[in-house]
């Protein structure tokens, strides 16, 4: 009788001890998850975002959840440049298009490889990526190419490998945009560990992806870059465009540091590769 009791007592005590240990561990894990990562600082005391970064996802194919699909020319390319499936980077379901805008998106997709045999066609049809046009924000962030952040107290320059696109983010000053532009006008500020960037004045001829998701000249993007480890950033972008969407919406994704030794942003001046597509109809027959 006393043996059974002592065994039971030991078992009970162990169970309680185990539970206490487990609870304590859980508390530690919880605390770890809620303490934000603190990035190393630049000399002026801000989170240091300097480096070469790249997205690793399928967002450039289609920012929404999508299936696999053929390349544009399967007889020519086989599985090369076929589309992989993706779970999407847009939070909260399908993009909230206005009905007429959804029709335009579908038309964009159908005409995504329309060769621009006239100025009018060039300006109204075709994926701008095929033409090596600067991709705008946020698409430049998640194209399958790296970009380099160069950070100074007054200004952050981002150099993108694709098309050598460049943008300046002004910090602590709010100069006005002289005109609309392909990469937009960016004013940045620091909020704790995050760089928050307001992007306006983007020309309406860039797309969000190869699927034809698009915007108007009313586009207003708010980006957040938040270090989550030494080699990761969390990238969030809120899109507000009342001419195209019924409400603002948000995308998010990790960005990964290019950590190889001597990582280098090598120019990708792709204009020469777009010329046949764009001007081939003007050669001598």
């Amino acid at each position: 009788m006393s043996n059974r009791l002592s065994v039971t007592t030991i078992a009970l005590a162990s169970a309680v001890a185990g539970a206490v240990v487990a609870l304590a561990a859980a508390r530690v894990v919880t605390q770890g998850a809620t303490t934000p990562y603190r990035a190393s600082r630049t000399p002026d005391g801000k989170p240091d975002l300097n480096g070469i970064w790249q997205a690793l996802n399928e967002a450039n194919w289609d920012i929404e959840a999508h299936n696999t699909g053929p390349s544009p020319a399967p007889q020519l390319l086989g599985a090369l440049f076929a589309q992989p499936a993706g779970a999407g980077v847009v939070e909260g379901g399908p993009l909230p298009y206005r009905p007429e805008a959804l029709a335009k998106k579908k038309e964009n997709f159908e005409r995504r490889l329309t060769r621009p045999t006239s100025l009018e066609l060039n300006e109204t049809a075709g994926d701008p990526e095929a033409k090596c046009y600067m991709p705008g924000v946020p698409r430049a962030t998640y194209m399958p190419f790296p970009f380099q952040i160069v950070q100074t107290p007054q200004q952050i320059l981002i150099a993108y490998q694709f098309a050598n696109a460049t943008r300046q983010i002004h910090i602590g000053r709010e100069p006005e945009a002289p005109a609309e532009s392909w990469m937009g006008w960016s004013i940045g500020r620091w909020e704790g560990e995050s760089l928050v960037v307001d992007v306006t004045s983007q020309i309406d001829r860039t797309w969000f992806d190869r699927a034809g998701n698009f915007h108007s000249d009313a586009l207003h993007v708010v980006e957040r870059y938040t270090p989550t480890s030494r080699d990761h950033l969390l990238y969030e972008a809120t899109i507000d465009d009342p001419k195209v969407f019924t409400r603002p919406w948000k995308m998010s994704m990790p960005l990964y540091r290019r950590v190889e030794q001597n990582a280098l942003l090598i120019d990708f001046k792709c204009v020469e590769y777009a010329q046949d597509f764009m001007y081939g109809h003007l050669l001598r027959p």
Partner: protein
Amino acid sequence: MFRRMVASGALGVAVVILLPALVPVAGQSAATKTPWGDPDLQGVYTFSTLTPLERPVTLEGKVALTEAELAEQEERDAENRVSEGRPLAEGNPGTYNNFWTSNEKGRRTGRSSLIVDPSDGRKPPLTPEATKVREQLAAEAAARRVGSPPFVHVIYRSWKDLPTYTQCVARPMPRQNQAYNHGVQILQSPGYVVIHYESMHDVRVIPLDGRPHLPDNVRLWNGDSRGRWEGDTLVVDWRNFDPRQEYEGAHQTNMHFVERFTRVDAKTLDYQVTVDDPTTWTAGWTFVLPWRGDDSNYQQPEHLYEYACHEGNYRQMEDALSGARALENAAARRSN
């Protein structure tokens, strides 16, 4: 101040390098440093100048111009800038170039040429090989011309017959002596100097960690740059150019540049380039081009506007190529 530095003529290059360290401008140390201890070259500059690259034959033997001669040149330029020498009517911006170009005084360096070595202020002779290539290209270009003077047109077979700049593919490097879009910015972060040119929105990210160049088979329109500090001077070794890129009439297949950037005062950088390509020129040559922060059009980073060259180039390419087809058709009809 800069003119005084270069008026010593024969000392030329050496004087220009040494003086900034010896004679800092009052009230501003020439050698300011970034917080991590690198010399601070940061700022917004322009590199336009009316000084020609090569010394004109009329100024042979003359390294520097006197103040009187400079004033005379300024006056001549001012006359040329207004429409046919007459004062401008209200609301009239003047001739095409007057509207576009930056005309501030001081655009001249005070020298008769940007080239300081060789001492005659001119590029060295071409090698026999380079001469042959140039003659070949000239012959090919002549074969594409139709019509007789003054109505001579060039037939563009394709976009490749247009300069790479007109195609918005790339623009020659190093940049020198532009009349407009001549703004440039230098930014620095630990381990890098970054040069952002307004023209072509080109960005050169220059690592300072001594890593090797890209392998020789990797050739880029803007080449590949590696930097190091020599005292307060940034020395950049620049090579790996695309063979199709052209500089001063020669392909950049074997071109190698050494740039030297030194801060002179709060608003000025001394910028020197030594051009080294023994397959093109029989000797190396060096030019000096001040980068100045005194252009009212380029005072802040945001004054470097987005240069969406290719994005805005469709109509130009369409016109050039369809025009070439029209010329061909007209020539064919005439010969039938």
